């Protein structure tokens, strides 16, 4: 029983990170039908923003060597603020990497490349400014909360539970907003058919900006939380999560919010089931599972098969 609880906790806490990451991809994909490859860089920025907002200083190897903000915010305040800053960056990316192509009616595939370029530029900019060294959000940032807790005999780190709770909370809020609010419904209308939505008076451009802003906010929050959990291992630390997030996005069903969550949790659980002596092959198991799932159900777990217009 204890082993089963441990396995579930391991899988859910790992999967929550993937789910949070994939949610950001999903939002942009749902309105534009393309994957924003700069999402990983925005995630990374979220972690750096959080680090600096709580009073962290830049190391010795970048142009901003030794820089430290004149104030230090508590983590619970720095995190949403970092999310907002990441959202602002995501809006800039939309403005320079997506909108010009959209305005010219370019093939959506081209936006993959411009977003990839934007991501590479951002990562290198981070390196130029603050160097390649690791930064860590202090372990005591969660106040007096214990580092780990026991649940039914299983051990889990408090920050992992926090990630799980935040991911769950954000999914609930997003789902309520998309299904229950006027603007959420407008977003769905744009994702179904932007031209018709525009004709019906829905500002498609504005809705796309909202999707990018929300996606950036989620990436920023995820980056800050993951940075707290595992330290910020240099400007490239979002890449691994970005690849896994893509897998989760496809597994859950492109553009499906509940699918992103379900996909994240399934991949997390699949990784947790890998036996100890094969632990270095967790990615093989996760992606192998993804491969088989897609052979059986190409639209993903909760994705829809759209009829082809002829």
């Amino acid at each position, binding site marked *: 029983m204890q*082993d089963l609880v*441990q396995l579930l906790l*391991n899988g859910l*806490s*790992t999967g929550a*990170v993937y789910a949070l990451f994939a949610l950001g991809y999903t939002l942009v994909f749902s309105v534009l039908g393309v994957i924003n490859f700069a999402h990983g860089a925005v995630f990374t920025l979220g972690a750096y923003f959080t680090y600096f907002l709580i009073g962290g200083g830049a190391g010795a*190897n970048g142009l901003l060597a030794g820089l430290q903000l004149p104030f230090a915010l508590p983590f619970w305040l720095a995190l949403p603020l970092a999310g907002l800053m990441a959202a602002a960056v995501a809006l800039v990316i939309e403005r320079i990497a997506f909108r010009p192509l959209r305005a010219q009616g370019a093939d959506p595939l081209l936006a993959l490349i411009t977003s990839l370029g934007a991501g590479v530029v951002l990562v290198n900019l981070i*390196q130029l400014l603050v*160097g*390649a*060294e*690791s*930064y*860590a959000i*202090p*372990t*005591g940032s969660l106040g007096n909360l214990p*580092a*780990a807790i026991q649940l039914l005999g*299983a*051990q*889990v*780190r408090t920050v*992992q539970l926090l990630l799980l709770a935040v991911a769950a909370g954000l999914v609930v809020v997003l789902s309520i907003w998309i299904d229950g609010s006027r603007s959420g419904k407008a977003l769905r209308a744009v994702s179904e058919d932007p031209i018709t939505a525009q004709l019906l008076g829905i500002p498609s451009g504005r809705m796309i900006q909202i999707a990018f802003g929300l996606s950036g906010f989620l990436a920023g929050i995820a980056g800050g939380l*993951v940075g707290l*959990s*595992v*330290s910020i*291992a*240099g*400007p*490239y*630390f979002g890449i*691994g999560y970005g690849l896994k997030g893509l897998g989760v996005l496809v597994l859950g069903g492109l553009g499906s919010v509940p699918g992103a969550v379900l996909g994240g949790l399934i991949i997390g659980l699949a*990784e*947790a089931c*890998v036996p*100890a*002596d*094969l*632990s*270095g*092959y*967790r*990615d093989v198991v996760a992606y192998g599972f993804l491969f088989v799932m897609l052979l059986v159900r190409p639209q993903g777990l909760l994705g829809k098969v759209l009829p082809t217009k002829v």
Partner: protein
Amino acid sequence: MDLLRRVQKALALVGLGAALASCSSNRSDQLRLGAGIALTGNAGLLGQDARTGLDLAKLQFAQLQPRLELELEDTGSDEVGATVAFRRLINAKPVAILGPSLSQQGFAVMPMADRAGIPVIGVSTTAPGIPQLGPFVARVASPVTVVAPRSLAKALQLNPGIRRVAVFFAQDDVFCTSETQIFQQAIRAKGLDLVAVQRTSVADTDFQIPITNVLRSRPQLVVISALVADGGNLVRQLRELGYQGQIVAGNGLNTPNIYPVCQKHCDGMLITQAYNPSLDNASNRDLLKLFRRGRPADAVPPQVTAQAYTGYQVVHEALAKLKGTLPKGQSLTSLPLADLRQRLLKTLLAGTYQTPLGELRFSPEGEVVQRDFSVARVSMDADGRSGRFVLQP
């Protein structure tokens, strides 16, 4: 008036010629030394330490003959990046190359330099088999076979009751896989129980799953072969998940750059040191003096910084010695480059050097022979942000 202009022109031409001549005569004494180290990616933290060592050596030897111009290339942290960097370095026609940072990269790129007939000296490549890659390959970083078992022995000395040992290693890095083999052999040779072996990746940051797997086997000692970012995170999460026993870390974590990663949880880790900052020789005094400029008076260079400095120093000293063997008036740059490299290699391998790492020499196949090692215990300050490597008696 016309005559005056002609004189002015002639003077200007003479001045220009003199300037060019002086410029070219300065350059004629200057040799190019290549360095390929990881400044980016997950080995970037090790590479930054090496860069510091190279910069300090450049300062130290700037005024001494022969003059060396350092050509630095970022190898990134993978073989592809290292290959690109080494190709550029080889094209730059250096007299020798220092690097790369990782053994994994070394196996890919050191043979490139060897085929080009360029002496290549590893400053942090400690996996077995590096000097055997070719006649032009050498290293100043002692092999893991010599280094790794010492910290294990120290852990057992500090706590003779240890029986149950668990091992973590990054399976996608050749240094880590070779180091763990040495550790595991030593564990078995000492009659200890190897209760768990967990494979990780250098790109991993979340270790909840492997750690909870290992903790079920109730280890009294955990031995880690990883690099800085993944290894530091592993140590931190081990402690957060309740592990209280001794931790022995491999050479990949042998840098103060782990402090911000594992923070207060770095405390107590044992790591073998190929560099002893308290060594009292002229070379180490020079290194410490340079390193402490703009730093606290008791600041101590990381091991890789000392090794990179040493790499530069042995090349410089070998070149100076070689210059001394040439007929009077002949400069090193007058030798054909291929010949110069051959002679440098021969001189380098024949020499004995007083370095910050102690007295060094090389075996005929380029393996470093070093006598002085010690084991350090990481001691973190109360704020958990800074610390030091405290050498154990």
